[in-house]
């Protein structure tokens, strides 16, 4: 689905993947936000299921990414405003907002600034603050190949590094590298710089008012589960906070453990209330 967000931050064509289904008024909506240097396709093995099981799926390509044109936006706050504008444009009511990595920061900021919009929040592979290693930030400008290699090295579990895949026949690190290569020069740097500069994570977490799932992976070297504890502690104790750590994946868990990620999301969105315990 392509639409024009005229008058809302950017005046460019925006692409949203909908899982091959039309958006229907009477359905709940899940809004999936991709991470740095990516596009909607990182969610393919979760979004398609939602779209064929009674949900509206909106998985945009962020500005300057994938099929959406215009310049990449330079701040997490700006990206959250852009998502808000997109949700208004589509008439989306109370979506579950699911973000990965940089997308998780955007989702967090959105849930804090527009709590009336977000019904539930899922942060996949998220820490806040999300400092980017200087070597990586430099490489996104000076040597994209090196940046992509570093990202893969820190994003994938060891077995994925040597080509084992839960998606039969696919080489996941190469798939990720090619996806990053497709983004225009400068986009990855803009994304990483936005992550690096975002300091409002704890404040944002404290303002979240909806049930929240923190989904992480034991072998994630980009946003390790241990580093998530301060963010988890920043949420108000009154909100239902669920934490799940997947054992066999790294930061790229949507492709490394696609079924486990889907199961965690599906159980969370369908739980009648969040209890603070992992849904069963």
């Amino acid at each position, binding site marked *: 689905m392509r639409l024009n967000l005229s008058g809302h931050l950017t005046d460019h064509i925006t692409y949203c993947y909908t899982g091959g289904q039309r958006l229907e008024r009477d359905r709940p909506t899940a809004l999936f936000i991709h991470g740095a240097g990516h596009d909607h396709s990182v969610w393919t093995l979760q979004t398609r299921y939602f779209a064929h099981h009674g949900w509206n799926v909106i998985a945009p390509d962020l500005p300057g990414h994938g099929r959406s044109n215009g310049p990449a936006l330079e701040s997490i706050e700006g990206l959250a405003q852009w998502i808000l504008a997109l949700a208004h444009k589509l008439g989306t009511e109370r979506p579950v907002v699911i973000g990965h990595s940089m997308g998780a920061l955007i989702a967090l900021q959105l849930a804090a600034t527009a709590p009336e919009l977000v019904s539930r929040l899922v942060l996949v592979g998220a820490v806040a603050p999300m400092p980017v290693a200087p070597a990586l930030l430099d490489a996104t400008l000076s040597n994209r190949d090196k940046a992509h290699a570093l990202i893969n090295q820190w994003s994938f579990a060891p077995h994925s590094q*040597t*080509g084992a895949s839960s998606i039969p026949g696919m*080489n996941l690190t190469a798939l990720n590298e090619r996806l990053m290569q497709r983004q225009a020069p400068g986009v990855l740097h803009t994304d990483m710089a936005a992550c690096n500069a975002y300091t409002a994570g704890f404040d944002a977490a404290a303002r979240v008012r909806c049930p929240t799932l923190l989904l992480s992976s034991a072998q994630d070297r980009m946003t390790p589960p241990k580093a998530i504890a301060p963010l988890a502690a920043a949420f108000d104790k009154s909100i239902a906070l669920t934490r799940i750590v997947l054992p066999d994946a790294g930061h790229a868990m949507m492709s490394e453990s696609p079924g486990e990620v889907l199961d965690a999301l599906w159980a969370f969105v369908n739980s009648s209330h969040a209890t603070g315990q992992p849904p069963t």
Partner: protein
Amino acid sequence: MSIHRNAGADTLALHAGQTPDPVHHSRATPIHFTTSYVFEDSEHAASLFNQERAGHVYSRISNPTNAVLEERIAALDGGIGAIACASGQAALLLAITTLMGSGGHIVASRALYGGSNNLLAYTLPRFGIETTFVAPGDHQGWRAAIRPETRLLFGEAIGNPGLEVLDIPELAQIARDARIPLLVDATLVTPMLQCPLDLGANLVVHSATKFLGGHGVAIGGLLVDGGNFDWEASDGHFPTLTEPYEGFHGMDFAEESPVAAFLLRARREGLRDFGACLSPMNAFQILQGMETLGLRMERHVANARALVSHLVAQPLVESVSWPELDSHPDHQLAARLLPKGCGGVFSFSLKGGRKAGAAFIETLRVFSHLANVGDAKSLAIHPASTTHFRMSRNALLSAGITEGTIRLSVGLESVSDLIEDVDRALYAVQKALA
């Protein structure tokens, strides 16, 4: 732009695609000899069928043992993924039919394996797909042969029978300019000697029957996708990838995955409907071979070099065709694109025509007389009395073969035994011509 490798080629050849079996802790890749896979429930079944979840449904479409092979070759070649097929021919056909239907056109190197030539020149035209053949080194010829309906450029990394070296970087540029993918048959080089995707190709096929397996016991083919072609930026020339496919839930493969659209379609349509899947037993056997691929290719190259050096000095040998020789027209190109060696296959021509060729072949003891290449054992064939025996002298010459041409696939035996075998056969030629 090539893909970063997370380990060396020898490490990937041993480990890529496989982690020890989590149930039984088997170190070797298990052979999953099953046609089908039990669903958890009807909901799980439906989501697998609709590609909402990853997993195996039926072994014609995917199989865990085959997946290890696919992931291993993809890791070695720098591809985003691969599909294992019943043969190299099946892999080539799968690539073509995924990209085009009736009305499509291919520009291909003239220096092709006979089976590929048969497919392109004789069989595919029956289904409305035409091919224009050009000399592999005629770059202007490649450009000139491209038509509005051209959907693929195709050549072999090392051609047949003259061992022409494909100038992949140059052809990749021609392909990019025309927004057409370049497919390379890398059977004779394997990822140990050359990775065409790193040189700009978009797709690779292997006859895994040859060097990848190495043992000569299993037929198989592999189709590898570089994920480096933008199907959506090609003026709608690839509707199989960029438009909804009613045959698979209306899926628009490029929308689902801009990077992996080709493999999605190839598996969901081509493997499903044409059915040329690989047996998991063959996948296992090819994997066993691939574990030693690096060591074997080094020996193939070393033995071939020794035999070439020996043959060029023999008075009964008219010429030796081997890109590492100064006399080969692609010598400089080989030095640039194949610095680790030009593989284990070469041809030479005997003085004395068919009679000499026949005498040579019939005297060999270590070399086996058969129509294959890439075995651990040394192989030989005399095209004028076998694969090309109906052809006249002039027709042979136009195919780059003389009546005395012998093709050798040099194996892993002790090189002194191979030289002794060749010398014995040359002596028989001398006697036959006396």
